[in-house]
């Protein structure tokens, strides 16, 4: 195996560099083709907002690629100096590269531990490379294996359970209250940056309408334009609260804008018991926490959602050892299977060659004693030569398998090929 995983992630490189190293689609195809043409390597480029990684597999006779060379390549493609890139690159070789990819695909190397999105990104990166024709036998085996391992880890451990980010926790709380969203009204109060991702996730549920209100009409209009919403004047906040099913509040008001008294007098009874879910993402809070009754009004603030996300993360961390154990087992199996696959043809050719030599000796021998030997004698002689052949080959084959396990198979395969005069098939 001549495999390298070279790249940078959120832990090794600042966001400014990762942004510069990102591959837009046309550049990605170009880079894959260049790697293929220039270095004769199979290549997959995995680019997400948290990482840029190149998985490179060359024939074993070739020297492995290394981080300085890749830094030059990346610098050339992105118009950066290689010296600026190299200190931020990490490099994993062979078995460690396999382990790294498996960990990445399972979300063990992600900022949000166990996130599911990365598995899809790994799949997409592989598909892009495959369509660009830059993958070969090793990467075509490795990436499907990584996706299978990710699925296994998610099924057999709790690494992906719960909601490990504030926005996903918010959406999942919504899914425990509502079943359909196409008849729901979302009200956005304020224009704060907090909660933008949450709103983005809520909009993916396709609510019927998004209402936006703000003390400043121009800000409300801007926000409404961003999220495809409809502006409601600030003085109609109570009416909007009566209409709404989901509220996302992000104002910068120094004190609550909706007190319990205001809510009870002007909103609660006009809603006829319809459930209202409020995500109060503002600090200080916009809604009086006493409004929450857990049934007709369900109010979550940033602390509630963060607590849930942290609990989920803590729960996921408990499953890291189980996930790592599965990965260790799968890495070992992958390396073993790959080596068997590499050793198979040479062992086959060696056996066939020695078979041919044995028959070339035994055949004339039996001819010479034709008529003087019984069938049992002939079978005994043939068996003895076969036994000799097996004992002769046992040493080289066992040594080859052992060398392959330790990553030194290539040298021995070459030696066997030369010693026994084996031709490439």
């Amino acid at each position, binding site marked *: 195996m001549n495999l390298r995983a070279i790249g940078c992630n959120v832990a090794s490189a600042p966001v400014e560099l990762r942004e510069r190293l990102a591959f837009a689609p046309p550049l990605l195809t170009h880079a894959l083709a260049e790697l293929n043409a220039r270095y004769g390597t199979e290549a997959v480029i995995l680019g997400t907002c948290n990482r840029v990684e190149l998985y490179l597999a060359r024939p074993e006779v070739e020297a492995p690629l290394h981080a300085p060379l890749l830094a030059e390549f990346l610098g050339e493609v992105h118009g950066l100096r290689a010296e600026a890139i190299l200190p931020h690159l990490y490099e994993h070789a062979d078995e460690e590269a396999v382990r790294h990819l498996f960990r990445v695909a399972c979300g063990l190397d992600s900022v949000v531990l166990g996130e599911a999105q990365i598995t899809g990104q790994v799949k997409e990166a592989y598909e892009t490379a495959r369509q660009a024709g830059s993958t070969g036998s090793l990467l075509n085996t490795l990436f499907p294996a990584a996706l299978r391992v990710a699925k296994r880890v998610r099924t057999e451990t*709790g690494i992906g359970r719960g909601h490990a980010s504030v926005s996903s926790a918010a959406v999942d709380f919504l899914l*425990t209250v*509502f079943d359909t969203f196409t008849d729901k009204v979302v009200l956005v109060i304020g224009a704060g940056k907090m909660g933008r991702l949450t709103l983005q996730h809520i909009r993916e549920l396709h609510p019927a309408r998004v209402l936006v209100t703000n003390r400043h009409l121009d800000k409300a209009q801007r926000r409404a334009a961003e999220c495809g919403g409809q502006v409601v004047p600030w003085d109609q906040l109570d009416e909007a609260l009566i209409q709404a099913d989901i509220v996302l509040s992000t104002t910068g008001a120094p004190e609550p804008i909706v007190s319990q008294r205001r809510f009870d007098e002007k909103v609660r009874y006009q809603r006829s*018991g319809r*459930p209202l879910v409020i995500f109060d993402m503002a600090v200080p809070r916009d809604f009086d926490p006493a409004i929450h009754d857990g*049934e007709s009004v369900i109010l979550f603030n940033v602390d509630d959602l963060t607590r849930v996300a942290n609990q989920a993360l803590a729960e996921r961390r408990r499953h890291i050892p189980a996930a790592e154990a599965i990965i260790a087992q799968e890495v070992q199996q992958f390396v073993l299977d790959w080596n068997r696959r590499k050793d198979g043809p040479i062992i086959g050719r060696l056996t066939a060659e020695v078979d041919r030599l044995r028959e070339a000796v035994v055949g004339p021998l039996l001819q010479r004693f034709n008529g003087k030997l019984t069938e049992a004698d002939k079978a005994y002689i043939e068996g003895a030569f076969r036994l000799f052949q097996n004992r002769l080959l046992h040493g080289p084959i066992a040594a080859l398998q052992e060398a392959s396990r330790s990553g030194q198979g290539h040298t021995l395969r070459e030696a066997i090929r030369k010693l026994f005069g084996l031709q490439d098939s």
Partner: protein
Amino acid sequence: MSASWWQNVTHACFGLSYLLAWLLEWPAWLRPAWHRVCHWAAVGFGLAGLIAHTLFLLVHHPTPAAPDGSLLLLAWVLALFYLYGTLHQAGRAWALFLLPVIIGLVGLAMMVGRLEATAWPAQVPAWLSGERFWGALHGTLILLASVGISVSFVASLMYLLQARRLRRKIDPGRVLPLWSLERLETLNRRAIAWAFPLLSAGLLLGLVLWRQERGGWENWLSVKVLSTGGLWLVFGVLVYLRYGTHVPPRRLAWLSIAAFALLLVALMAAHPFAPTGGPV
């Protein structure tokens, strides 16, 4: 193998199968690594229980007029619901809530069957045993209403648990995935809307038959009559609260649970036409 082996199927056979299915559902939800194996093993036991249950009903022909018969028939219909729900909504812990109801009904049927063995002789009046059309219709309407009440009960339990989690702001993804409040409330509402007219029609038909057969109102103070009347009243209140006013769904859920308790009393009590006059 004996030609009549299925005649040896007892309450214990299917009751234990359902119990094993329920016990296997727990690790299926609490240990993700075991989910698939335990879930399918549970479905296997549930299916085996349903087959044994069906054979038992085919062999013994229990009458819905007898307490144990009505409990067993109700449990059988709910077992069909369980299997359908668990196969079509595999991502929800529906079975954990429905199976105990089925197991409880089978257990009660066993208990009542033993108690009633002497009090319920074989010569049941013909219309009660379902041999006549109107009697059979009366029994069927009450049985279907009972199914609706049971579904409403299970939906209410799930609703209360889900609402409790939300009140305490507990991560919904941590344990036992349930349906949304909206869906559970809809399920409860539909079950009530389904059960009330059936219950009303069944009771009305029963009253007409009673008047025709007996010409009077003897035994009207029996537990069965009183609990069924109470059940109808509770359901009337439920329908009024659901459609006439805007009562919080949590209160409706508690009323649904009360209705189910009354249903159990009504099903377990002897029919007023039982030859012994019916135990109280």
